[in-house]
């Protein structure tokens, strides 16, 4: 991106618009935290500033929502889903692009069609497939569909990467007489590492925040994703708004913290992700 500007932006308008956008974006978070600090069990009103702030609400919410269990459950799902999905899409895209399998355009189109299917449209048959496989209420009923549902985007993403790889790289490998597996493992994988890292960030985030699949496949909220558990928590404690807000803050905190630390990776992954999607 060039930083040379011959037509300088209108600095004040720009700053004001940006400032307004930032305020609107932050307002819900501020409101949530403000409410989480009110005296527990009270019915707060909108603009009361909590005095003194009740930080112990976060401790209560941490225990009541069983946060460590939830974090572990979400992390477990990420571990079950992301490496498997990455392995499948890297191999598939490598086969489609680099090894030029017969029928490659058709296979790619088949995956591409999956990009447009809303999860809600598959959730009913997926539930019965998992039920018939006796997997409902196990984490496999969440993980397996997610792996499959990530494939269209993943294949699309890795195909774009392999298309951008210089031809010489693959040719060098075949001259060396390296088998296709060795070429993938030792020549293509190191080059693909940044693309794979971005994809892993996206897959992890989607899994952590996944709601409908976790909701349908798992009755026990403690074995769902954090997002799925948050929905159930809201239902169970609907009378204690302060507690709900405190729990919501705690449950959002991990992704926000990871985001702030890995900001560059996240922003580029999300931007490229929507472009490719």
């Amino acid at each position, binding site marked *: 991106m060039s930083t040379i500007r011959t037509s300088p932006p209108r600095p004040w308008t*720009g700053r004001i618009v940006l400032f307004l956008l*930032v305020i609107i974006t932050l307002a819900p978070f501020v409101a949530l935290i403000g409410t989480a600090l009110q005296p527990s069990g009270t019915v707060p009103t909108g603009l009361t500033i909590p005095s003194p702030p009740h930080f112990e609400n976060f401790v209560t919410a941490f225990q009541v929502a069983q946060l460590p269990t939830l974090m572990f459950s979400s992390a477990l799902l990420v571990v079950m889903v992301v490496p498997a999905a990455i392995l*499948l899409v890297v191999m598939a895209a490598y086969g489609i692009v680099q090894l030029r399998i017969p029928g490659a355009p058709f296979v790619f189109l088949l995956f591409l069609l999956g990009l447009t299917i809303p999860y809600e*449209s598959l959730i009913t048959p*997926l539930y019965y497939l998992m039920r018939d496989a006796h997997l409902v209420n196990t984490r496999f009923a969440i993980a397996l569909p997610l792996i499959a549902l990530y494939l269209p985007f993943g294949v699309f993403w890795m195909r774009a990467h392999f298309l951008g790889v210089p031809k010489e790289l693959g040719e060098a490998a075949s001259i060396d007489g390296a088998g296709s597996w060795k070429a993938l493992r030792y020549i293509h994988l190191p080059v693909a590492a940044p693309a794979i890292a971005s994809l892993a960030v996206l897959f992890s985030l989607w899994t952590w925040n996944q709601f409908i699949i976790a909701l349908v496949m798992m009755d026990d909220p403690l074995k769902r994703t954090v997002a799925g558990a948050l929905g159930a928590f809201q239902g169970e404690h609907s009378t204690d708004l302060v507690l709900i807000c405190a729990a919501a803050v705690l449950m959002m905190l991990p992704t926000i913290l990871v*985001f702030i630390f890995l900001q560059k990776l996240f922003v580029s992954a999300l931007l490229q992700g*929507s472009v490719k999607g």
Partner: protein
Amino acid sequence: MSGWLYVLPALGVYAWLVIQPFALSVQYSFYQWNGIGPSKWVGFDNYIEVFSDPNRLGAIANAFKLMFFYTVLAVALALLAAAVTRGMTSRWGRVSQTVLFLPQVIPLVGAGIAWEWLYQPQGPINETLRAIGLGALAKPWLSDFDTALPAVGFVGTWLLIGLCTMLLSTGMGKIDSTLYDAAKVDGAGPVREFFAVTLPGVRAELTVCVTVTLIAALASFDVVYVMTKGGPGVATMVPGMDIYTIAFAQNRIGAASAMAVVLMILVLIVVIPVQRLMAEKR
């Protein structure tokens, strides 16, 4: 041929858990089935329900109304924001970039909980209105039949505006600066400059924004589930919530599947013209 060995594992999983459920959705949609007992062939009855039952039609209509908030409002505001902040490279710009992305990384459920509180009768929005003397405008936004859907829709605007701003900013950064010089020489003001140079320059990014937000509007679920469950009445019912309710609360698998098939077709009907229209002119 050995290349197929690399593709087959992914293709197998895809066939098992995407293509098969897709085919099953179509199959179920022609049956009456409660998920446990025997099923009965009913032909197109479930589709007739989708297109004649006011609840099903209402959900579809709501999805289209949400497009105003998810797509029109979010993309228009993002265009404005990206255009007026074009070239801003200060530290401020980077900080706001981080902030604008926050809605993209939190669970939508969390966003739903925050916004549900904002909209409460005694919540921050109403209290603010009262504090500045506009108390007459205060209302229970989510339980009022007239305001519930716009209230849910605005959450979509909030979610997507940052993503679209960032995408469009990136696009505007790639526009050749000599085009702006030429526009200046021609005596173009900021508005003409925007329509003559900026807007055509971000066509690709605009296509992405429109496509992504249209799909988000049609397939909304999490926010609606958390904030209203489709209520009051069916004022905020959307296809995703409707499918979930019919399938897992009413156990009418056929009816839910017909709605699921219609939703898939709607996505294609909406997305394909956008893609073709925008691609043609490139």
